[in-house]
């Protein structure tokens, strides 16, 4: 269970606190929470809720990146799953809808995994193929329009609440626990980290590296599909052209902010999700600040760089703290 706990997450937590504090400054009511119609209501909840798609994506992405891969197609897979869910929602039961949408994600993941693990393509181009074509497939399903639905079950997935928390947040939490249990409860985590750390050596040690690679892409596809269903449920419609657009970059960013190296190896699920939260906290802060939208990207750039610099081993202050921490643990 080592990497499930934010053992090395000090920098990330600190970054989150700083950004939250800045948000508080630009928007004094940021921490206000109230209960309305049985659900919590406030900016903090928005952060959690709006952060779910990227958090879900990053759950799959972090595993892919741990094997030294990358998946650019997650945004497109979101669109496909959303489109499927929306077109089936009013005629089928929730179980069928979910099975179809997640099944589509699984197939997309298999395809990516096949290209990378079996055909040996470089992950970035292999998944670029589905990134381009996948959105087309999604639009093919919706024929370019926004397919709306009113199935209360599916809408509940996007807008309902459990114990005051929005359903998407609960689902994401569940997925985090599930993924953590599967990955760290079995030997998967170790074997994935070994594959990413040195694929040749792992193969020689008897690790089925192809199977590892295939399975992480499949999981990534499933996570993306779930994110797509939630995104569609949120707006009660599937917007094939815009659902998940550019979210792959946010997901990768979340993973890297979460301290996982793009060169594979060690990964942390919790920190990846924390990375997604950091990004969303910043986004929500930007929206609340009231600055003109022309500034959005500049603010984003500055924040991203600052968060990364906080983590940089070269910045002495931090190296000192984390080294001391490690020493006390040892």
């Amino acid at each position: 269970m080592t990497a499930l706990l934010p053992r090395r997450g000090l920098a990330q937590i600190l970054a989150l606190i700083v950004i939250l504090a800045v948000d508080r400054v630009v928007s004094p009511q940021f921490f206000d929470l109230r209960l309305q119609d049985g659900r919590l209501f406030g900016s903090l909840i928005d952060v959690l809720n709006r952060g779910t798609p990227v958090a879900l994506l990053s759950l799959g992405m972090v595993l892919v990146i741990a094997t030294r891969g990358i998946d650019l197609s997650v945004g497109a897979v979101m669109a496909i799953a959303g489109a499927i869910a929306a077109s089936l929602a009013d005629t089928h039961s929730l179980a069928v809808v979910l099975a179809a949408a997640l099944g589509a994600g699984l197939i997309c993941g298999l395809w990516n995994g096949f290209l990378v693990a079996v055909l040996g393509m470089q992950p970035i181009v292999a998944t670029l193929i589905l990134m381009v074509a996948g959105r087309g497939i999604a639009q093919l399903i919706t024929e370019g329009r926004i397919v709306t639905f009113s199935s209360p079950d599916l809408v509940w997935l996007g807008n309902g609440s459990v114990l005051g928390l929005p359903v998407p947040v609960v689902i994401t939490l569940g997925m985090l626990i599930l993924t953590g249990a599967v990955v760290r409860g079995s030997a998967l985590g170790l074997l994935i980290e070994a594959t990413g750390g040195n694929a040749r050596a792992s193969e020689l040690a008897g690790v089925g590296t192809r199977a590892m690679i295939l399975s992480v892409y499949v999981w990534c596809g499933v996570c993306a599909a779930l994110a797509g269903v939630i995104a569609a449920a949120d707006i009660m419609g599937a917007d094939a052209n815009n659902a998940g657009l550019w979210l792959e970059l946010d997901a990768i960013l979340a993973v890297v902010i979460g301290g996982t190296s793009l060169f594979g190896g060690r990964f942390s699920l919790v920190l990846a999700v924390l990375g997604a939260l950091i990004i969303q906290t910043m986004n929500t802060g930007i929206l609340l600040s009231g600055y003109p939208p022309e500034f959005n990207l500049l603010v984003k750039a500055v924040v991203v760089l600052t968060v990364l610099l906080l983590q940089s081993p070269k910045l002495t202050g931090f190296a000192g703290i984390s080294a001391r921490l490690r020493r006390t643990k040892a």
Partner: protein
Amino acid sequence: AELTIGFSQIGSESGWRAAETSVSKQEAAKRKVNLKIADAQQKQENQIKAIRSFIAQNVDAIFLAPVVSTGWDSVLKEAKEAKIPVVLLDRDIDPSGKELYLTAVTSDSVHEGEVAGDWLAKTVGAKACNIVELQGTVGASVATNRKKGFDTAIAKHANLKVVRSQTGDFTRAKGKEVMESFIKAEGGGKNICAVYAHNDDMMVGAIQAMKEAGLKPGKDILTVSIDAVPDIFKAMVAGEANATVELTPNMAGPALDAVAAFKGKGTVPPKWIQTESKLYTAADDPQKIYDSKKGLGY
């Protein structure tokens, strides 16, 4: 002989755009015109490439829905050299290119913003009103113009004020997210009197956000947006939306007629065929309009 026309379409970034494409196809089929549509995926480079390849294929005319107003001079000059007439659809290009195209069938997006603003001013009357604005994609000319028109319209009324303005990227999801934060930032929505969205999709998202916050869109908060896509009429039927300004998806019809006349009899059409920016409110039998628009491919 049957006419072959190449249409460089921007993409399918919104329901409205999809409708424009499918209406264009219908209109072309009606007139037995062979319409070749090249989809540029929102990229000017692709549009230029498409026009070049239309020229290489020697089509009879080219329709262009320009993604941006500038940068068409040299490729349109090539078309002119090849004696292929060009018709602009939906959006205009920079004035310097006036002699390079036959005619432009467009609406005036500044005017659309004005219509929306005027409606709001009239509806609010003398009461003070804080408006929040959902902008289109930063840098998109339609967004800039619709903002400009709206600002001009409300500038005449000191009681109207835009208190917050953020981009919702023309999408439902972002419209909803931005509206959520507007509500938080403006005292749970109590300080907001009206929402103006640069397109209906964002408004549909915003309406959901308001409902989830326990507000009554259309009553507590007025809404006005642009495009007149079917879903906004559905919201009007439910009393959750107040007004929309139509941008007709049928730009190709008039354009095809103009080209046919020009090719047939040599009639030179006027430089600008302006489409109507019609305002629809709950008083206009939204259910009927919804039904009539539903099949158009939005």
